[in-house]
């Protein structure tokens, strides 16, 4: 595990080749983390994976996080692992919520819910502009395929360049991003077939 000074060294080295890529570091409860500019995430991950002496070649996990009410609101966490030294390093890419910015904009048009998507699950043109975007790392770490789909499914984070960005656990025609903090628990009615008599056409 790189300690706090070790993290500062990594920060300085990455920022030498990619200025402004690493914004900050944190070392809390024995967990090392780099906070990274989301637009340069692929550069940072490539550097950490391929630079001799770093070689974080195994991507253990990718988490989506919603920091509401803090800003920037969303984050994608990459849990990297160096298998030789057994060192874990978390890379956090913070993402702003374009829907909130849109709503705060002066154009006065009411912002739609950012949950719109086509029935096949691929977000349609106007809706994706209201979703946070980040580059997909599937080319670098193929294991991220399902995990990025999961984050898209639950948080509505669009991974640009993902080969097959569809919902994975929720139904394809589902509307909304259920793991966001402002999505209510139990906010939708439970529908039973026995209610067909009183509520015809419930399946629509």
């Amino acid at each position, binding site marked *: 595990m790189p300690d706090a000074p070790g993290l500062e060294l990594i920060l300085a080295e990455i920022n030498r080749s990619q200025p402004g890529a690493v914004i900050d570091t944190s070392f809390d409860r024995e967990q090392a983390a780099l906070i990274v500019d989301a637009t340069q995430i692929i550069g940072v991950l490539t550097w950490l994976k391929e630079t001799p002496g770093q070689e974080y070649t195994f991507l253990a*996990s990718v988490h*989506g*996080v919603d920091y509401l009410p803090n800003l920037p609101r969303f984050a994608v*966490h990459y*849990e990297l692992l160096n298998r030789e030294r057994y060192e874990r390093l978390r890379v956090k890419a913070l993402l702003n919520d374009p829907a909130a910015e849109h709503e705060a904009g002066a154009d006065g048009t009411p912002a739609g819910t950012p949950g719109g998507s086509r029935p096949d699950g691929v977000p349609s043109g106007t809706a994706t502009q209201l979703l946070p975007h980040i580059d997909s790392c599937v080319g670098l770490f193929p294991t991220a395929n399902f995990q990025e789909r999961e984050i898209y499914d639950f948080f509505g984070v669009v991974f640009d360049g993902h080969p097959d960005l569809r919902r*994975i*656990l929720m139904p394809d025609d589902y509307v909304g991003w259920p793991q966001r903090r402002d999505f209510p628990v139990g906010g939708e009615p439970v529908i039973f077939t026995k209610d067909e008599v009183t509520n015809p056409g419930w399946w629509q």
Partner: protein
Amino acid sequence: MGGAGSAGSLEGRLRDEEVTIGDLKTEIEDRTGATVELAPEQEMMTINMGPHHPATHGVLRLIVDLEGEVVRDLKPIVGYVHTGIEKSCETMNYWKVIPFVERMDYLAYFSNMEAYCGAVEKLIDMEIPRRAKYLRMLHLELNRLHSHLVWLGTSALDLGAMGVYFYCFRDRDKVLDIFEMSTGQRMHTRYFQIGGVAEDIPSGFEKKVRELIVTLNTGIAQYESLLDRNEIFLHRTKGIGIVSRERLLELGVTGPLLRASGDAWDLRKEGGYLAYPEIEFDVPVGTVGDGYDRYRVRLTEMRESLRIIEQCLDGLPEGPWISDDRKYVLPPRAELSTSMESLIHHFKLVTEGFRVAPGEVYNPVESPRGEVGCFILADGSSKPARVHYREPSFVNLQALRDMAVGEYVADLIQTLAMLDPILGGIDR
């Protein structure tokens, strides 16, 4: 009658007589006078396997492209038993989350609990008593035995070995009896608490576990003799579903699947959580990484688990089994009637729970299927702001395509069985 109609009536002849696609083509062309294109793709067939199919070990749906009997492409579709466990966890106090996370991977409930409890203990910087560590290891390894026994029974059943299934489930029941003895439940025990374990083991527990070790040692030898000389089993597992070690690592595969390809990667050795560094055990590895190696690795792992259990019993330290930090741990029942402070602590913990300072923690644990990791984001309240599980089944399932493409569809069943996915864990 159009060309399509003629082809339809000829379909029956294709089956009855020996008509090749070429013959069919000439015949249709002769009859209709039109040129017919029968590209090889027309022999490709897309079929749907599951979600309700006994061989998919749960509600897993596979869209399989077949060329004749050979699998050319495969897409897993999951989510049929998604119950929003991670979302529900956000509405619960820290200690009320434990029963939820247990029910994700329903064969590895102790591993799930350990990942969660360990993460919370890291968040509140709590060291658990040594006896609790040993009791946790003991139950984690019993859980590994239980999970592997269910896997072996159902997988052997998929390959037509009915007897092994009965023997495995007979022995699995004995493991569950032990869980019932120490925790009161056969499955989903909620035995691990934040700070230790819920209850000390009862008297007679050690004797029963030692009996189980003897029974299972002979039991494992029995399964081996049933399967290792079984011509059908060997033919169906050897040399099938091989994926290179490098590719498996790219796909993030961990656990017995990775070890079968010759990579001795085990978090119990590398991560050194609980008291595993004090325990002597080996990490079994395979050589080629086919179905047979996966079977051998899991079987040997069961033997190693028995070794760990034996050492846990031998070295079980005396002392408390749960931390006495009253801020996080319920006071003993007896104290409630004598001590006012205990009553207050008890009331606070049960009604509000404890607060955790803001922070984030990722705690990985070796489950029977690989690295199960629990990520918790604490926001300072008494409820976690995010609980995310890195489920080994979910990640390992991505390797199924690499394993199955180019093999026969019958071997897909075997490959899936040796992958050992638990759909409760995949869908959460």
